[in-house]
């Protein structure tokens, strides 16, 4: 167990501890600020790290990545704005909780769940880094496609009242994902001759538009209808304190989210946002109170928050052993290793084992640090924010949304996309279309298409490749089974409803 001496040496190094605390704080702030993401912060801070020792530089950036993923939940809960893409799923229940005056409670659930998920991911990484890398290598395009297929089932669980509208929303998401370059032939599709569109529609501006601007527009409309807008519920001590009784039902969701996130972390490139949505969908499917989800269920915060942080640890395995970054943060970390002359790859654990385990140790300490700051600081932040009157808050949110959309890629075009997406989101809300299904399918469609077509190239066009490979087959069966299960459930509900009508 190389991790224990590593932990010991990290704890006894005051400078390193200071770096961890600083990184946890910086990460939380950038995560919580819509428009600043952990990856943008890391990219900005990268030049500074040239002059640090490698461990210092890596620990600093790694912890920023972790606490940034967590910090995103703060903005999601308070403003219905995902501070990072990873926290988009947290809004679904986090924001209604804040509106009910329970912002502090929601943030504490987010904190505990993030810490649980993150620690689960890190333990898995420390115990099974070699094993994880071996799995990652076994997953070729057919297996990855099957996993995407299984993930698509999640959409079924977030579909609300209307199946037709839910499926239409998912289809729209797939259509929007098709814009840009064909993943295989690199030819332009649906770009209408616009150079900007050839880059595709960015996830960040799309999400901010649909979730945030859509919400702002909806609020504006409400205000015009109802003059003398009532202020959001004052937060009370009761709304900010969390009891063990309240967290208890969240625990299974946090653990499940941790496993889902860790599993997704193994697959390079799926990322925190998908993990959060899958965990949310899965949580809702298994919840005892699914009708509460989306209206302010604490479990609906726990499930995605545990999952998006659990991605962090395991995603380091393919990065360190295969040089495949699973995220933007991973790509930058890879650069740091190389800039400091450390060759990433299978030999890393022979040449720089001590450094790697010290880095893992720093990550674990970082989790505890942001957990403590978050748990005790979140309530204060929530109190402050909720004192802001809505007529000040909404313009502020509006502004941060613009900054966020612009800063993700430094592109004015993204601001246009966000505005357009805002109107789409508002219209979808108005007519009860399903925004979550739209975003999830947008995220999944790209990877699903790419891996599907890669598989067909490998097999010369034969679909049998998915059945001939056991791992792929297992996931396909899993997905199909879940869909069948879901359809049966829906039919049952209908029968009951019809039966009820017949009796009347």
């Amino acid at each position, binding site marked *: 167990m190389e991790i224990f001496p590593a932990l010991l040496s990290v704890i006894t190094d005051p400078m390193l501890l200071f770096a961890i605390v600083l990184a946890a704080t910086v990460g939380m702030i950038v995560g919580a600020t819509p428009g600043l993401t952990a990856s943008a912060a890391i*990219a900005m801070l*990268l*030049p500074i790290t*040239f002059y640090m020792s490698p461990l210092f530089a890596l620990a600093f950036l790694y912890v920023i990545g972790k606490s940034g993923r967590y910090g995103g939940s703060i903005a999601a809960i308070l403003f219905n704005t995902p501070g990072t893409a990873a926290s988009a799923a947290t809004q679904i229940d986090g924001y209604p909780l804040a509106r009910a005056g329970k912002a502090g409670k929601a943030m504490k659930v987010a904190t505990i769940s993030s810490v649980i998920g993150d620690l689960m991911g890190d333990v898995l990484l420390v115990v099974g880094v070699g094993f994880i890398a071996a799995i*990652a*290598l*076994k*997953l*070729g*395009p057919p297996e990855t496609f099957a996993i995407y297929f299984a993930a698509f089932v999640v959409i079924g669980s977030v579909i609300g009242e209307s199946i037709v509208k839910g499926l239409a929303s998912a289809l729209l998401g797939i259509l929007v994902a098709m814009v840009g*370059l064909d*993943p*295989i*032939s*690199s030819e*332009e599709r649906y770009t209408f*001759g616009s*150079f900007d569109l*050839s*880059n595709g529609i960015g996830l960040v501006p799309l999400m901010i538009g649909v979730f945030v601007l859509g919400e702002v527009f909806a609020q504006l409309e409400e205000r015009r209808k109802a003059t003398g807008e009532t202020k959001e519920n004052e937060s009370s001590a009761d709304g900010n304190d969390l009891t063990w009784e309240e967290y208890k039902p969240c625990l299974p969701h946090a653990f499940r989210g941790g496993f889902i996130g860790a599993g997704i972390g193994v697959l*390079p*490139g799926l990322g925190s946002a998908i993990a959060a949505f899958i965990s949310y969908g899965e949580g809702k499917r298994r919840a005892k109170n699914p009708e509460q989800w989306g209206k302010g269920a604490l479990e609906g915060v726990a499930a995605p928050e545990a999952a998006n942080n659990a991605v962090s640890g395991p995603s380091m395995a*393919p990065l360190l052993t*295969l*040089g*495949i*970054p699973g995220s*933007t943060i991973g*790509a*930058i*970390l*890879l*650069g740091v290793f*190389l*800039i400091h*002359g*450390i*060759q*990433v*790859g*299978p*030999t*890393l654990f022979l040449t720089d084992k001590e450094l790697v385990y010290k880095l893992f140790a720093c990550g674990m300490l970082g989790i505890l640090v942001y957990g403590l700051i978050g748990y005790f600081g979140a309530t204060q932040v929530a109190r402050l924010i909720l004192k802001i009157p809505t007529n000040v808050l909404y313009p502020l949110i509006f502004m941060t949304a613009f900054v966020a959309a612009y800063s993700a*890629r*430094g592109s004015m075009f993204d601001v246009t996309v966000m505005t357009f997406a805002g109107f789409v989101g508002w219209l979808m809300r108005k007519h009860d279309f399903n925004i979550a299904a739209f975003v999830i399918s947008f995220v999944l469609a790209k990877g699903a298409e*790419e891996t599907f077509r*890669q598989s067909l*190239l*490998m097999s*010369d066009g034969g679909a049998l490749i998915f059945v001939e490979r056991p791992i792929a087959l297992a996931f396909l069966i899993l997905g199909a089974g879940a869909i069948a299960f879901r359809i049966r459930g829906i039919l049952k509900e209908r029968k009951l409803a019809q039966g009820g009508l017949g009796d009347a």
Partner: protein
Amino acid sequence: MKRRTLISAALAGIALAATATASFAADWPKRPINLVVPYKAGGGTDAYARAISAAADGILDVPVVVVNKPGSGGLNGANSVVGARPDGYTMMMTSGGSFLLSTMTRDTDIDALDSFEFVAQVGQLQTSLMVSKSSPFQSVQDVIDAAKADPGSLRWAHSGRGGFHHVGGLGFLANNGIEAQDVPFKGGGPTRAALIGEQADFGFLGVQQLAGFEDQLRALAVNGQERDGIMTDVPAFGELGIPFAAVSSPVIVFAPKGTPAEVVAAMEAALAQISAKPEFAELLASRGTGPVYQNGADAKATLSAMKEDAAPLVESLTN
């Protein structure tokens, strides 16, 4: 009368502008230089830019700031630099081969040879033919024989259609009269992983991708007349006597069209000094790459020659 004053005013203006340019060029650089990299942080070109930025200390009096503008196969960043003020404070460092090919295959007004001033070449990225360590192919000839024995049965991986690894691979296939189905992956890392995981029979990827993966991969040949300067253990197609297409990717620094000649010359001289620094080579060594310097005029000639070489292959791509 009026017209005359206008003309003289205009002339005076031109004269002023000219002196301004001259004096302006003389005290360049006085603020940080933005070096735009049209790829993600952490990639091969990005590593060169960051090494330049670190090694510029003591040669240029101002910091060199690396700005990543990824997207559209490098054209996104190129577009932003084409429109930048030609004042010597915005430049672009790009993977010349990929940049050239994307201007040939994509619908764009940018011409790789004419839209920018060539400042200098500081590095070189080479593609190479690799197989998994457990592959039955021990030599390039083995690959060619297997492809000929059962045409169309082999699969090969690369990092994206239209990139220089893909075009290099196509050149190898075409020049040896063999066929194989390509499977594109997103970028070098995933391509390497796919090859290690034996998702494809062989692949074309950067020769530097071998560094640290010698136990998982076997590089059969580097796509050039001579061996790579850093990865010296890998034989070259040229020495093996196997036909190939001379497509590589010189890492070149470009300035916006119209940047004063003195500024371009000063930057060229600075880059020559920077790329000669031992520190620069050390920073790149761990990535399996190294300094390869050429002045702006030579870099332009190299790229022109490559354009002629690649034209028929690009033709086959786009049709």
